């Protein structure tokens, strides 16, 4: 696999360090520990996946990282500097998120060009018109899509706009929350290819959350299996493919993910 930077991944600097992250919902007797002492590290240029079933806390981790939930314990460091619980603009300039449902994440009454102009304005970028054309071309849509409304786009095209919105301010870390689970398989293939290409072209770092093992291992080199708010184990994509898991739960998950075998 060709990567822009020839430095071996292991020697690259840490982009994101999460230590002892915990998120609790509710208080007292009804408190629910959704994320329980989660630690992991992402090197610059790496793609890391969090997998698990619904309710395991994977999306909660992502939301805490993105600053959508500032009530968390533990620390999150970006390039070895701890980020404030309430994120500042400088953080969002470098970390952006792509959501699961492209039907819900775009404003229905905003034209594509307005969707893309907003982050540029917030972060004070110059040449907005050129940048919009550039990013639309990079995500495979082309400048003619500027004047479309979301309802004039297919699911795959919407997700491309959502990716363009995240990338237009040239961030280095992209948080991906099940970016293809609402799409058909052929469209999923398009978006996965696009994400792979963009990562190479722009030297991006990905943190992806998904319940689909095949999708995660396709895009990420390393994955962590989550269950009941905890990370059970970390594996390389090759380990997952070969079914090398230590925890019984992970093994069961891997087995259940490859088609259907009746329970004996």
């Amino acid at each position, binding site marked *: 696999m060709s990567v822009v930077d020839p430095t071996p991944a292991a020697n690259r600097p840490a982009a994101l360090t999460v230590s002892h992250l915990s998120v609790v919902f509710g208080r007292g007797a009804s408190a629910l520990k959704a994320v329980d002492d989660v630690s992991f590290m992402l090197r610059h240029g790496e793609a890391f996946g969090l997998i698990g079933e619904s309710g395991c806390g994977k999306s909660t981790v992502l939301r805490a990282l993105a600053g959508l939930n500032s009530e968390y314990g533990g620390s999150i460091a970006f390039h070895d500097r701890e980020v404030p619980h309430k994120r500042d603009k400088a953080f969002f300039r470098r970390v952006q998120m792509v959501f699961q449902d492209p039907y819900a994440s775009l404003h229905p009454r905003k034209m594509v060009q307005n969707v893309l102009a907003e982050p540029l304005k917030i972060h004070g970028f110059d040449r907005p018109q050129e940048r919009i054309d550039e990013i639309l071309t990079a995500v495979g849509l082309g400048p003619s899509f500027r004047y479309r409304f979301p309802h004039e786009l297919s699911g795959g095209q919407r997700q491309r706009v959502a990716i363009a919105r995240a990338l237009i301010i040239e961030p280095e870390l992209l948080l991906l929350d099940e970016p293809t689970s609402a799409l058909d398989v052929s469209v999923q*293939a398009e978006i*996965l290819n696009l994400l792979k290409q963009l990562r190479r072209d722009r030297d991006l770092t990905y943190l992806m959350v998904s319940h689909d093992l095949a999708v995660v291992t396709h895009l990420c080199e390393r994955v962590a299996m989550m269950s009941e708010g905890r990370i059970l184990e970390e594996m390389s994509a090759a380990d997952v493919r070969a079914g090398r898991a230590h925890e019984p739960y992970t093994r069961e*998950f891997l087995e259940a993910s490859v088609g*259907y075998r009746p*329970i004996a």
Partner: protein
Amino acid sequence: MDRPLLEVEDLSVSFRGAHRTVQAVRGISFSVGREKVGIVGESGSGKSLTGRTILKLTPKAATISARKLSFDGIDLLAASERQMRTIRGNRISMILQDPKFSLNPLMRVGEQITEAYRLHHKVGGKEAEARALAMLEAVKIRDPARVFRLYPHEVSGGMGQRIMIAMMLIPEPDLIIADEPTSALDVTIRRQVLSILDELVTRRGAGLIFISHDLNLVADFCDRVLVMYAGRIMEDIPARELRNARHPYTRALLDSLPRLDRQTDMLQVPSRDPAWLDGPTLQSGSRA
């Protein structure tokens, strides 16, 4: 093999609009015996509509036409609404995608299952209750007496889907249409639910139409697979041969999937051939 349970010939479903008529299902033919038949396709391919048409549960705006649409010798196309009511649930039943939306939120789980049984069998409350409890046990629910008294919001997704299966199978239908029954479930739960469905369908010798978008799942779970695209059946193929499918559309779908068993750099994005829109159904593999 004896006569198939369901015979469909040249079935079309169209929606008449103010400006144009949309042909959602276009002249498809297939038959289902006492076997597990998968229908796969992308969204908008007409797979769900085909399932609903068999039960005549299509929206009012839909126009159905077919040379033949018969179930166990009954002409469904000519059947009255009254006749259809004796067929639905009793002889053909349907399991939908999300139990959250298909169970009545105001009725206890047990009552719903009992009702399904008593609608089609003249039995007393006590006997129906005993049957319902036995059915809950058959779908591997521990402590059926407790679950019997729960409301749908008190059960998990996987348990909800098992309750749906119990409800749909208790009248002992001959044909079950399952429309994405496990898409809303986690993979480990999916396996349990499918095992139960598989066991019950096989043991009772019923027919199953399994509608799904998941090719890998259908290849493992079903006996035969119909691949739909744009309202047509592209290929009719034994499930165990699906991975060696010959139709370019089926091949393209398979190639577009990220795979666990081998690493690919870039995935194939299917290109579509307009000739498929009116092409014949490819009958692949050895016929039974």
